[in-house]
């Protein structure tokens, strides 16, 4: 507490000082602190500067002093400098450039999180000169191994686009590449970038549609919202309207089909229709979307629930939309802002699909503690839900509302009663009586509102209600609210023949008070006078003249105009034209009764849940929800034939990887999910196979032929996406080579094997990940399997696998450990312990496992190769082995020997591969040139000659077999 107080004192004191000295020498103390070499002083200074920024004070003059610290070691100082830099870089462009090199260095850092944060800050600096640097950085990051860096790249795309829209075409390429990404981390971010940069390029989605649907449930919640909204739009362009067949004959049905039975009826009718006409069959992809979004209605995030609700509203067959009602009603318990938005959307939905919310009628009842804007919206929903069966309960509810203390709400209730009365004929008289009773209410606002509503109701059947009109005429003495007075006068004028005696008297009173009335009342007095003059000129001629004269000299020109116009029209003079003959027709024409309708009618042409829908006006950047197409576009565009086998294996691979990564922790759920998604994807594949014609099958056969050629390409692609082992990814490469760590006999029943999974080791990129598999062949369970006392060469490090508690008899368990071999083939020795025994074991890596693949273009490869000539180049000639014919065999053998990736190459005689060593990151470039008669030449360029020599040997051996 004391320190807090002290801090506060310090804080206020420093603030005062700042204010005092700000005019003469601004922030000199801060500059001094920033220049000092103590981190604590720098931190204190940065904290004060950030506090200034937060309060909106200008701190831009400190820019040079702050930007110097961009490379500071202290993480917090660094972060605060970033905050400052991003805030002021736009104003101090030249100085901001000083910091760029730091970030460029950061982009090359081996730690993925540092790479990501460097890209994040770099792309947030809004300085146009660095656009090319940003572009380059984004492109590079988009093919980074780490999905987190790729996600950051996706975030950077809209930043660059807003800075320089000319980059659009290049950015679309990056987006296209990232859309193909298969990790959940990237999916949400890249779709967001897609929506901001090129929402019109719907064609980019085709190939990724199914993948997005399947990933959806595992994407983080904010990404889900964006993806769902985008997919709604996509579905509207690609699929047929599931309700189309109903729509055409729906016209008559809606007259009676408003009950809960509506759904059933629909089904029956739909069934009947299906028999009659060409049956509607839902596209399996359309079904996939609906099925995969449904569980998200259970999300804790209101935005996700709303997104799914709007998707169902816009895309689902009528009979299925009902599921969203429950979830939306649940949201009503949330914060009042959430309620406000949800109610707006429910109001729109209730107009189209009333039956859906009827069971939840009571959830919309109003509490006295609700804010007025919520009350009004609930009222709107209740009014929309009213029908013959529930109107009596609703009206009883309305009666209690009228007694509320919140007068705005009472006024809205009266409006609502009016609307119920117009919509439901049975209760019109009841409502009218109720409203008339309100005319004697003490609150003027209530009376005024009732008058306005009664006026509208009376217009529907005036002849029955002359006594109400008389009653209202009496009110003119008391009511002061202008709108109500105007309404009464209009009523009397309009129906003066129903109240022949009273009308002239009202005019007389009004003439007396004319000068003190509000403008709208004056206009209605003129109106009344004119109408009475036409119907009952004997009694009112003089009065009318008088009123017209008063109006002639009114201050308001509208009223003067009106007076002049009326006089010309109704008072016959010799000059008056032909119009005066028609005066009666003009004034006393039969007016159609007003239709009281919801302000939410027709709002559903905006996508629900959108800002535009809420405001009922198009917001900037709103993407129109397209109408359903007349006939379905080709569904085969979504087929992903070429990638079909890879996709399969990769999901399997993922499954494996998650299992091995965290064997105990997550395996259960993850494998469950994965299985789910893989079965689902295969399901949709097979569905589509059976449904789409044989064409696809033929294509598939062709693909199988081409498949071998594609392998190399896919391998490269996969590596780029950090999908680990190329061998595992492509079935032709065969399984991973396993080595024995502990034989069954020496291990006394415990057998241990290991293989190099070729996957980057999580946690440390300098380590080779080694997958170890334990098999318990004994009758008793082995306990606490762990690593003990590693004996390592200097520099080598081991990341031990998490201890295995229990390995039951006959079971197999797999774990991953990381070893940093320091780019040498020296063995790592350690002990493997069970709860009773210890075993000495050794892992010796083949040279090919000490490297990891990198992706390069042909040009880059040539450039790098040029720099690694002379001593760094080792060339050997060889004769290819018997079975080693053709490109793909060579590629497969090289890749299984060494963890490298294929470099695309123009010439058919050459194969190139690239990688870098795991620890030091030195490049390893391999070229295999084939010549006549099985002769070939292998060239390895590598800075580390030892590795180069060993690698050449291994490759020679592999190729000459």
């Amino acid at each position, binding site marked *: 507490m004391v320190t807090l107080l002290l801090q506060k004192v310090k804080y206020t004191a420093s603030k005062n000082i700042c204010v005092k000295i700000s005019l003469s020498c601004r922030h000199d103390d801060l500059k001094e602190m920033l220049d000092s070499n103590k981190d604590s002083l720098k931190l204190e200074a940065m904290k004060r500067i950030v506090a200034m920024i937060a309060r909106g004070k200008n701190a831009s003059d400190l820019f040079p002093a702050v930007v110097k610290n961009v490379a500071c070691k202290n993480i917090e100082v660094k*972060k605060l400098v970033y905050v400052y830099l991003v805030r002021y870089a736009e104003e101090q462009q030249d100085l901001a450039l000083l910091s760029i090199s730091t970030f460029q260095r950061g982009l090359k850092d081996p730690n993925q999180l540092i790479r990501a944060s460097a890209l994040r800050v770099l792309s947030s600096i809004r300085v146009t000169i660095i656009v090319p640097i940003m572009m380059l950085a984004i492109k590079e990051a988009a093919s980074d191994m780490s999905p987190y860096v790729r996600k*950051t790249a996706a975030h950077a795309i809209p930043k660059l686009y807003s800075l320089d829209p000319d980059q659009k075409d290049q950015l679309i390429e990056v987006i296209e590449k990232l859309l193909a990404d298969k990790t959940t981390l990237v999916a949400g971010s890249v779709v967001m970038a897609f929506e901001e940069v090129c929402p019109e390029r719907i064609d980019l989605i085709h190939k990724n549609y199914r993948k997005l649907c399947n990933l959806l449930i595992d994407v983080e919640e904010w990404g889900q919202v964006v993806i769902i909204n985008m997919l709604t739009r996509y579905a509207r362009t690609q699929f047929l309207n599931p309700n189309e067949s109903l729509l055409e004959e729906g016209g008559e049905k809606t007259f009676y089909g408003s009950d809960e039975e509506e759904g059933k009826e629909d089904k029956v009718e739909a069934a009947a229709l299906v028999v009659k006409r060409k049956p509607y069959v839902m596209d399996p992809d359309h079904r996939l979307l609906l099925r995969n979004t449904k569980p998200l209605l259970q999300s804790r995030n209101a935005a996700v629930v*709303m997104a799914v609700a709007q998707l169902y509203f816009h895309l689902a067959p009528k009979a299925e939309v009902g599921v969203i009602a*429950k979830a939306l*009603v649940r949201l009503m318990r949330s914060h009042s*802002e959430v309620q406000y938005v949800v109610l707006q959307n429910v109001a729109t939905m209730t107009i189209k699909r009333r039956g859906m919310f009827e069971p939840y009628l009571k959830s919309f009842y109003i509490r006295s503690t609700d804010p007025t804007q919520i009350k009004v919206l609930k009222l709107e929903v209740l009014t929309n839900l009213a029908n013959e069966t529930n109107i009596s309960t609703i009206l009883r509810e309305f009666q209690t509302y009228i007694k509320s203390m919140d007068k705005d709400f009472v006024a809205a209730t009266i409006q609502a009663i009016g609307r119920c009365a117009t919509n439901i004929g049975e209760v019109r008289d009841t409502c009218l009586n109720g409203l008339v009773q309100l005319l004697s209410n003490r609150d003027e606002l209530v009376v005024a509102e009732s008058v306005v509503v009664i006026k509208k109701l009376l217009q529907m059947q005036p002849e029955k209600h002359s006594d109400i009109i008389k009653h209202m005429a009496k009110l003119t003495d008391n009511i002061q609210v202008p709108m109500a007075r105007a309404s009464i006068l209009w009523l009397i004028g309009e129906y003066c023949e129903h109240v022949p005696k009273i009308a002239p008297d009202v005019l007389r009173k009004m003439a007396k008070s004319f000068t003190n009335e509000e403008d709208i009342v004056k206009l209605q007095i003129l109106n009344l006078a004119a109408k009475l003059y036409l119907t009952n000129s004997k009694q009112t001629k003089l009065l009318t003249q008088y009123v017209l004269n008063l109006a002639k000299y009114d201050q308001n020109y509208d009223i003067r105009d009106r007076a002049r116009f009326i006089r010309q029209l109704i008072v016959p003079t010799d000059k008056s034209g032909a119009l005066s003959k028609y005066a009666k027709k003009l004034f006393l024409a039969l007016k159609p009764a007003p239709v009281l309708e919801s302000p939410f009618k027709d709002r559903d042409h905006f996508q629900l849940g959108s*800002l535009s829908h809420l405001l009922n006006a198009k*917001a900037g950047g709103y993407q129109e929800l397209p109408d359903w197409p007349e006939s379905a576009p080709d569904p085969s565009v979504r087929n992903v034939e070429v990638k079909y086998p890879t996709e399969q294996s990769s999901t399997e691979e993922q499954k494996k990887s998650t299992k091995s990564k965290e064997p105990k922790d997550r395996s259960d*759920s993850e494998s469950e999910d994965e299985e789910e998604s893989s079965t689902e994807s295969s399901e949709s594949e097979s569905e589509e196979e059976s449904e789409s014609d044989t064409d696809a099958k033929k294509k598939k056969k062709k693909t199988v032929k081409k498949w071998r050629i594609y392998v190399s390409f896919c391998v490269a692609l996969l590596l780029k996406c950090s999908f680990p082992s190329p061998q595992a990814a492509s079935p032709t490469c065969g399984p991973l080579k396993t080595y024995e760590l502990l034989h069954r006999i020496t291990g006394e029943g415990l057998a241990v094997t290991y293989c190099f999974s070729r996957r980057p080791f999580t946690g440390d990129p300098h380590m080779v990940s080694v997958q170890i598999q334990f098999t318990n062949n004994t009758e008793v369970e082995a306990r606490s399997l762990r690593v003990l006392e590693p004996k390592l060469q200097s520099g080598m490090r081991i990341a031990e696998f998490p201890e295995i508690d229990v390995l039951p008899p006959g079971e197999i368990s797999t774990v991953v450990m990381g070893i940093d071999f320091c780019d040498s083939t020296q063995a790592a020795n350690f002990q493997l312990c069970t709860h009773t025994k210890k075993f000495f074991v050794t892992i010796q890596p083949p040279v090919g496992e000490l490297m990891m693949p990198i992706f390069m273009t042909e040009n880059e490869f040539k450039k790098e190769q040029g720099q690694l000539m002379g001593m760094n180049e080792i060339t050997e000639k060889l004769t290819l082995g018997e079975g080693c014919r053709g490109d793909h065999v060579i590629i497969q053998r090289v890749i299984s020997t060494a963890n490298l990736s294929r470099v695309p190459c123009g010439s058919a005689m050459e194969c190139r591969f690239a990688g870098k060593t795991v620890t030091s990151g030195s490049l390893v470039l391999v070229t295999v040139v084939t010549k006549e008669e099985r002769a070939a030449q292998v060239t390895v360029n590598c800075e580390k000659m030892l590795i180069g020599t060993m690698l050449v040997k291994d490759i020679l051996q592999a190729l000459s077999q």
Partner: protein
Amino acid sequence: MIHSLFLVNSSGDIFLEKHWKSVVSRSVCDYFFEAQERASEPENVPPVIPTPHHYLISVLRHRIYFVAVIQSEVPPLFVIEFLHRVVDTFQDYFGVCTEAAIKDNVVVVYELLEEMLDNGFPLATESNILKELIKPPTILRTVVNTITGSTNVGEQLPTGQLSVVPWRRTGVKYTNNEAYFDVVEEIDAIIDKSGSTITAEIQGVIDACVKLSGMPDLTLSFMNPRLLDDVSFHPCVRFKRWEAERILSFIPPDGNFRLLSYHVSSQNLVAIPVYVKHNITFREGSSQGRFELTLGPKQTMGKAVESVLVSSQLPRGVLNVNLNPSQGTYTFDPVTKLLSWDVGKINPQKLPSLKGSMSLQAGASKPDENPTINIQFKIQQMAISGLKVNRLDMYGEKYKPFKGIKYMTKAGKFQVRT
């Protein structure tokens, strides 16, 4: 998406601003102040306000307006939900979310906001990840930091964002491993004049406080899972398992979190644990009114009804009240006309009552509205819907955790019309 954020206090001062894209002048808030002036009550400010170049989306929490500025189409709930998440995070970090707390921790607030959004798009909103990035300030840490000059920012880069279980930190260690679950149900009800229930529904949540080492995998099963007809889960819950077996299976986040919230809708029968007898009348012509209120328990299954608080907004015409409570104390604010009566525990043998007279404005006619009565109460060791946890099992770790489950029923929006 979200361009900028302004924090406005109840007196209309902007005390914090943060921009994620180019800077938006704070004069944009003038449109907000205009709307604020037009609204009679603070909660009546429309959440979405269009201005010529921007849209303002705001939420009101703890008497602070969080005003987000956006420039183009974005789902409004997206922004609102995010703003609430921001407030929750502040509350989590500072204990309270007041203007003073935010001003005192302005640097932490800034660091948090920086991590939560990137270019206006949410980046890290999971509190476990944030806590790894930025440690919450505690008094001890403040003392240590001022002495040693160390920082609040985590030295290590967070790995949570990269893992498959983003909500859980790795390497959690506790000496006492414990898992507590609170089943809390709130009854929302409207009771009409005659005492019959117009609408009643139950909103339930299961809040958990889990302090377990390593990566525990928990399963929670219910005696009567059918009761839960509408549920929403923390992302850690495996949905498929719930669908198939009605069992909650999850790897819990570390610390406090909301595992599940559910809704038992008005279509089911809901037991109402208290009843109110009331007689509030104003006589025409006299400047006196009568006020009588008696509370009593019903359908509580023998559990005591505690912390009862009755409040009512009396009509504007009431000048003062002169009441006599049989237990507890009452207050009446003559300005806001808010009557509140702190009853405490209801003794079924001697029912609490509040009786007396109200004095009205002389000469004014009798108010035609009757006040509604809002009631708050708590019942320990009972979930009114009848929900019961069957068992909690842990897999994946070998120690034996301490487990505890608590039930509680509370009044939510419980109103009695008179």
